[in-house]
Every structure is written in C-alpha cells, then in structure tokens.
C-alpha cells in the first residue's frame, strides 16, 4: 500500500484509511447511487466522508466544488475524479461504472415497462401526479439556490440569471448559443467585480 496515488494524505494520521480497491470503489458508488432517490450527493458525502473516511470534509468540498463548476452531471464527475485520485484511470472507470451501471439497468427496465403500459389510464394518472410533484421539487431547488444570491444583492448576477431564464425558458433559444454569450459575460463581470473589491 505504499504507492497510493493520494499525495494529500500523509501516513501517520490517526485514522489514515486504506485507499479503496477497484471492487470496493465499484460497490461503494453502486450503493450510494441506489440509495440516492432524488439526489445522490447526500449519500456520496455520507459514504466517502463519514462511513469510509476516504476524504476529510474539506477535501470532499473542494473536490465537489471542482465537479460542480465543470459541465456535466456533478455526481458523475465526482465519481471519476474520486476514483482516479485513488486508483488512476481504472479507478475512475470502476467508480463511474458503479455509479451508473445498476441504476441504468433499473431505469431501462422502467423504460421497457413504460413503453408497454404507458398508455394505461391508471399509470397515466399516477405519473402525471408524480411529475407535478417533481416539478415542484425542481422549483424548490431553484429557490434554495436563489436565496443566497438575492441576499448578496449582486445586480450583475441576478440580471444574468434573469436573462438566461428568459432566453432559454421563454424564448426557447438554443442553450449553446445562449451560453456562448452568457458565460464570457459572467466570467468577465465576476473578474472585474472581484478586482475592484480586492
């Protein structure tokens, strides 16, 4: 266990845990994924930080911050970055496969059932009810993320947020074009604001 690719973790810490093996990575990510109804992140944090102690809370936050600012599903990014930190590319693949494999089998089974029975009236009504609730959950996430931004009263950020909402949600413009304008604008504005306040 001497050649573990985890430079931040010096030996000698009281609870220095062993780096997970490939099978362990697969199983750990499969478990958190299957536990994750309505979001895997909570379970990932619990497993990685509290249960296995593979990362400290700070290491986890830093890793998640990186995965959040990169494009793509955050938790999928996290699995790859986490797996590769301990076991290189094979580790990344093991964690990725664990996170996505089992739930993909489940969702695909549901897709097959839906294709056969999707027109049944009872199922129609149940799914409609679920989707109304699911949209509500999405609005709740938006609300929770919006509050800190409103509290900061940052007019540039709020303006850009509103512009993106109108462009994509109301005008239905293609997202790549909208982002091609909004991303450089937002990065430029953030950079200038920070330089002024620094």
């Amino acid at each position, binding site marked *: 266990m001497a050649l573990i690719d985890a430079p931040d973790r010096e030996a000698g810490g009281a609870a220095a845990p062993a780096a997970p093996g490939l099978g362990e990575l697969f199983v750990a990510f499969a478990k958190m994924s299957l536990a994750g109804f309505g979001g895997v992140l909570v379970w990932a944090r619990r497993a990685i930080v509290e249960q296995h102690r593979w990362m400290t809370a700070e290491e986890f936050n830093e890793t998640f911050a990186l995965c959040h600012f990169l494009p*793509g599903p955050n938790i999928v990014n996290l699995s790859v970055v986490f797996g590769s930190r301990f076991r290189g590319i094979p580790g990344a693949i093991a964690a990725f496969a664990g996170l996505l494999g089992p739930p993909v089998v489940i969702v695909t089974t549901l897709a097959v059932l839906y294709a056969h029975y999707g027109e049944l009236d009872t199922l129609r009504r149940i799914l409609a009810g679920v989707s109304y609730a699911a949209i509500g959950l999405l609005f709740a996430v938006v609300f929770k993320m919006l509050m800190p931004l409103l509290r900061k009263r940052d007019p540039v950020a709020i303006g*850009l947020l509103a512009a993106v909402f109108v462009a994509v949600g109301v005008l239905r413009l293609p997202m790549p074009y909208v982002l091609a304008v909004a991303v450089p604008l937002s990065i430029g504005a953030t950079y200038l604001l920070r330089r002024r306040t620094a």
Partner: protein
Amino acid sequence: MTGAPSLGGLAATFSTMSLFAIGGANAALPEIHRVAVTLNHWLTEQQFADAFAIAQLSPGPNVLIVTLIGYQAAGLAGALVATVGMCGPSATLAYVVSRLLGRAGQSPWPAIIQAALVPLSIGLMAASGLILALGSDRSVAAMVLTATVAVLAAVTRVNPLWLLLAGGVLGFAGVV
C-alpha cells in the same frame, strides 16, 4: 416517436450536450427538451414529462432521464448510447482538469469561474421548471400540487421521495 434517429446521431447529440450541461443534468433539461421534443419529435410533450417523473422516482443520478429518452428514441442501444454520450465527455473533461489543477497550485480562476457560473445554472434550472410546467401542468389542481410541493420542499426537511409518492397517490385518486 417519429423519425427514429441513428445511434451515431444520438451519440453526437448527447455528447455535445454533455459539455454544455453547466450546473448538472437539470440545467440541461431545456436543451434536452428542445432537441428531443421540439426539434426531432423523439418524444411527445407528455412522454417527456413522464420521463422526468420516472427519472425522479428512480434511484441514481437525475441525469438518467437521458436513458429513458434514448430508449424512447432508439430502443435498448439508444438508452445505452444516450447515457454514455451524456456522461462520458464531461467525465473525461473532469478527469483531465482535476489532473491539471493538481499541479496548477493556487490559481484564483477556478473560484472566479465557479462564482460566474452559479447564476447561469440557476437561470437554466428555473427555465427547466417553466418548460416542464408549461408542458404538463394543465389543471388548477396540478398547479396547486406543484406549488405546494415547492413550498414544502423549500422550507421543510421532508424526504423528497415522500412528496413524489404523495403526488402519485393524488394522481391515482384522480384529484389532480
């Protein structure tokens, strides 16, 4: 379900989308909706709302809505191609960037870029909510249910799964 797409077309579509999904899968929903429903008619508005509901009810990352869309568009192979297409490129990028940043030391740029992207991803998620609501919330009762769940999830710590199941029960009972 008109115009079954080629697997190559599906792969290209979702691989591109993968790299634009800033803020995660829910932020990419407007684009997924535009491409899959409006542009290519792989799914109806109804099927898209159903796919969203099924993905929320299932364990695993929310991104798995693309598995359902892939299946609807091109069967089992489509499900697999859409999933790998949506997750592969961004995961590869995450791997490369995490390796590079490991050596870059204390650059202020990751923090600046992250702060700059937060409002954009919130705007995109709000757009997702609007598009989904316009596509499926037709009755007053449905809108009341959506609003109630939004408030409950925002101000309490109740497990979201219970709210989804409650929605299903109300739907089954014919209330919404």
